[in-house]
């Protein structure tokens, strides 16, 4: 399909405001006479609140209110179940909010929060999911589940007896992953006030304004129509802004005091007030025939849901469905569990359950390749999904399944022995230490001496990712389009741009259809008083799903416009009318055309408007509860990456030198944004694989700071070469699929496999710290005697 605006490197409409520092994040807005809210949080992982004494805090001049559980009309919220208290009386994790103090200044509110006296009955806590699963451990949510097992998803396909009987080679290994924080740069903030209509107005940064509205209304006992959630600029999300953090507390205080309320997390508070990526233990057993065909796979996956359900069911379902990797395996048995503990609650994070299993299945592939004496590329090509393949849940993959094209594109980069120094790096940043930087200063003689202890290696990782809500849950997006009298247009949708650039994508889609430029399109999103609910910005669904809704909406408006024009130009059908470069007219007849604005204005004078509202629903089917069979997601996105690493055998430090990433995007609606998603995903993947780990001691976070929770810096990222494969997905807008989450998946296993390639040790638990690498090297040395 020839497109003009779609597929081009349109500049993001929001970028200018951001480079000038004009863009308002929620911390940047204030109202006269606002109160400052500060939360009192539990230091205990499991406790009952016996009493909260607020008199001392209230006694501080300037303190206006202290709210506790008894002040919340309906004291709960949650994405799947309302199992999370707004203000807790029963504590299930360190950081559970108990009270919120409102005062005239932030300093006063902080001081008063320290004066709130909470008497706790400390209860025994459980931190290990395996232990929490046992029947003798008391359930944390007896109203939800009789035990701490929140969810179990089995997948049963084929016959394991037959599968193992056919297997010539079997590899079995346990893998584990860590708690990870989203570490978005903007800490949660909110400004709530009751406006002149008597409505509750909440300005915040969220992934889903309409969800926040519902939870606020529910907790306060208001109608949806009385609550406006207006999304300010969102400073990164990655799944961490799906659950409610401060929104209800601020709204409640504004509602009870009738004063504007500002709340803003410090970085430490932020660590305690949003979800975490699920740590998982994954036991894998995989068998293949001697000609390299996978025949059997068994996996047991236990995910730590932490204190609240959040998205755990969906996350562990995603783990199960994606457990095989993008490979055909006829005999599969998977058991995936989500288990409550007193750890920080786990929820959505980029990759959503598929980011953990990629470590396991891709490590297994390399182990099998080694056992069979074939290359990592070969074993993947022999087993990869193709059009017509059947997944472990029995879903037949139709349409776009271009993993073969991705692998073909990456294969030239997998030639071992290619010295990466010979490859002309486009951007050679972060290659060496800064000692030679300054003019007039001596250069370092040689670094070769320490290089002797360094080994390089390359690794391959593949991944697949089912986009959308999945499992039969109606995945609906909506959009309103209006073509203005001057020929420009506005699109309204609830879909929040969390920084990834979806607003620009919608502008491109509308411009494409109307023969305009994307600057001619106003995109307004994430305001519940003005935009229709378009679902959450998650599950890699906004380009695909809301993109579809926007496309349907603009086409509907366009149909009426074309009909009107056909009538105007005495053209028998609307088929004969075209919109191009701001003109509307009869195809092939330059004499019968006029500026779009003239046409729209004439229509206006005759009482005709071009306005539309449309929804688009992506379909999936729920899986069978006993066998896991079903078609839980659509579409699936695929990708593969090569990582080259250098491992210092003396210090165990790993540096990623180069990543080549090839991703299936259906159609790149904006190549610049595709590259941006890939580079961002690769970097988060590197952080996950090598650096990031939330350290917990009895449920308490030991490193709730950016100086101790380490994410990659500009010097830690390699040269990233991003490629994409365009194999159109017929259900997507202009053939597009989403990319946000898949981009980080292959990196994880590519890095881990590259470490193995470099120094011959296999790291099975993330992150691959220098400690683990040195310990593994020592073990290997011992084995070799």
């Amino acid at each position, binding site marked *: 399909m020839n497109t003009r605006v779609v597929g081009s490197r349109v500049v993001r409409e929001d970028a200018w405001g951001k480079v000038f520092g004009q863009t308002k994040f929620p911390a940047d807005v204030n109202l006269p006479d606002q109160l400052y809210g500060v939360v009192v949080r539990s230091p205990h992982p499991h406790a009952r609140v016996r009493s909260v004494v607020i008199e001392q805090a209230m006694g501080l001049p300037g303190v206006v209110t202290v709210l506790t559980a008894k002040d919340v009309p309906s004291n709960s919220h949650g994405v799947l179940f309302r199992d999370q208290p707004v203000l807790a009386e029963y504590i299930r994790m360190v950081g559970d909010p108990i009270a919120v103090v409102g005062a005239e200044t932030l300093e006063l509110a902080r001081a008063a929060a320290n004066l709130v006296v909470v008497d706790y009955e400390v209860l025994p806590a459980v931190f290990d999911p395996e232990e929490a699963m046992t029947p003798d451990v008391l359930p944390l949510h007896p109203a939800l589940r009789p035990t701490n097992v929140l969810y179990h998803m089995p997948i049963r396909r084929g016959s394991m007896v037959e599968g193992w009987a056919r297997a010539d080679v079997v590899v079995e290994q346990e893998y584990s992953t860590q708690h990870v924080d989203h570490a978005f740069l903007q800490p949660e903030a909110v400004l709530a006030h009751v406006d002149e209509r008597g409505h509750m107005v909440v300005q915040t940064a969220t992934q889903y304004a309409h969800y926040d509205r519902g939870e606020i209304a529910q907790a306060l006992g208001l109608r949806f129509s009385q609550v406006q959630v207006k999304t300010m600029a969102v400073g990164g999300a990655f799944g961490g802004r799906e659950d409610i953090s401060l929104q209800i507390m601020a709204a409640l205080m504004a509602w009870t005091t009738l004063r504007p309320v500002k709340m803003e997390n410090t970085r430490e508070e932020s660590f305690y007030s949003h979800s975490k990526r699920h740590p998982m233990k994954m036991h894998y057993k995989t068998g293949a025939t001697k000609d390299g065909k996978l025949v059997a796979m068994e996996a047991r996956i236990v995910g730590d849901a932490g204190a609240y359900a959040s998205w755990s069911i969906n996350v562990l379902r995603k783990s199960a469905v994606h457990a095989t990797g993008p490979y055909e395996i006829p005999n599969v048995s998977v058991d995936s569990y989500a288990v409550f503990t007193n750890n920080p609650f786990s929820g959505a994070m980029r990759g959503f359950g598929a980011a953990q299993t990629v470590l396991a299945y891709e490590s297994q592939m390399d182990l099998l390749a080694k056992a069979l004496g074939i290359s990592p590329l070969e074993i993947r090509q022999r087993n990869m999904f193709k059009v017509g393949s059947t997944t472990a849940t029995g879903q037949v993959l139709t349409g776009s399944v271009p993993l073969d094209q991705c692998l073909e594109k990456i294969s030239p980069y997998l030639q071992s022995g290619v010295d990466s120094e010979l490859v002309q790096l486009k951007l050679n940043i972060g290659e060496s230490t800064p000692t030679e930087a300054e003019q007039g200063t001596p250069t370092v*003689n040689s670094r*070769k001496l320490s290089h002797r202890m360094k080994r390089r290696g390359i690794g391959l990782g593949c991944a697949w990712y089912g986009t959308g809500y999945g499992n039969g849950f109606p995945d609906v997006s909506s959009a309103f389009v209006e073509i203005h009298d001057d020929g420009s247009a506005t699109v309204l949708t609830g879909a929040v741009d969390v920084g990834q650039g979806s607003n620009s994508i919608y502008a491109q889609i509308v411009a494409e259809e109307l023969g305009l430029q994307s600057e001619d399109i106003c995109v307004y999103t994430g305001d519940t008083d003005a935009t229709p609910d378009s679902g959450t910005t998650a599950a890699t669904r906004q380009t695909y799903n809301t993109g579809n809704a926007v496309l349907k909406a603009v086409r509907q408006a366009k149909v009426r416009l074309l009909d009107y024009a056909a009538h105007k130009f005495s053209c028998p059908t609307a088929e004969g009318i075209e919109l191009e470069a701001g003109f509307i007219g009869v195809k092939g007849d330059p004499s019968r055309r006029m500026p779009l604005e003239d046409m729209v204005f004439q229509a206006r004078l005759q009482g005709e408007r071009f306005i539309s509202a449309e929804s688009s629903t992506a379909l999936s089917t729920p899986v069978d509860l006993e066998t896991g069979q079903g078609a839980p997601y659509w579409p699936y996105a695929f990708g593969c990456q090569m990582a080259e690493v250098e491992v210092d*055998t003396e*210090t165990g430090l790993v540096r990623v030198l180069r990543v080549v990433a090839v991703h299936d995007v259906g159609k790149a609606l904006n190549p610049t944004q595709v590259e941006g998603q890939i580079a961002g995903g690769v970097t988060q993947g590197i952080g996950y694989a090598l650096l990031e780990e939330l350290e917990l001691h009895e449920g308490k976070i030991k490193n709730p700071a950016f100086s101790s929770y380490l994410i990659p810096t500009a010097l830690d990222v390699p040269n990233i070469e991003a490629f994409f494969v365009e194999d159109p997905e017929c259900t997507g807008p202009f053939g597009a699929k989403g990319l946000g989450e898949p981009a980080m998946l292959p990196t994880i296993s590519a890095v881990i496999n590259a470490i193995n390639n470099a120094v011959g040790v296999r790291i099975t638990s993330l992150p691959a710290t220098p400690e683990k690498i*040195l310990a593994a090297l020592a073990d290997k040395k011992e084995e070799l005697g």
Partner: protein
Amino acid sequence: MKYFQPRSVSEAVELARTTESSFLAGGTDLVLHMQTGKVQPKALIDLGKIAKLREIIEAEDYLEIGSMATFAEIGQSNLVSQNAFALWQACQTMGSPQIRNKATLGGNLGNCSPAADGLPPLLALGAEVHLITREGEEIIPLASLLISTPLVPQDTLIRGFRIPRKGLQSGFAKLGRRQALAIARLSVAVAIEVKGKQVGKVSVALGAVGRRAFLSETLGLALSGQELNEAWIEKGVEEVQRVVRIALGDRASAPYKRVAVAGVFREAVASFIPEGGSMV
């Protein structure tokens, strides 16, 4: 809280004597500690407006670096790279550009974190600290100062550092988890006297191996007065591992650090010894 901005050293010293104040250097640690409530000074004496304290001066026998010279200034100084290469190196990788623009060498000593990047190079280079105490001026070896607790009385001003100009070859390396904004998990500074193919006196200082950076006498003795070759490096690797093992005892980080220090030592030495192990 009171805030003083003296314009001269004598004014600063006088303020320290007459008020209950803390000195404020660059503030990259102190301001943070004030925010978290870890320290609550009654008054601050901001040394930032005393130009003299920022100077880097080449004297006959030593290089004097004012306590308020920032890591960025030291890291851009040719005098430092010529006379104290290890320190110059440490200044390239400490924190981030923003922190290096504000953090000072004097503050690095005053705060005295176990991982302070500036201290191992100063120790290895035999630096002395120039103090202004209640009694007057005092020059004391950094190695001796680092043994005392508290480091200096509250009213003692760290005036600067004197690094002997002995033509030592020196190098510094640190082990951090990332390439920037990395707190040293281990750091090694080595300084040697070169006499033809022989090494004379050798000084090795370690950071992030215990409460404070220290100069290892054991290593100095073990490595001094020998032929400079690959075997010397391997001996150094072995010895430094032993020193770290003893220093860390059964701390949780010990099993890793006592091994990994080998790579850090090797990199510090590689700063001035090319492949093959002999000097150019």
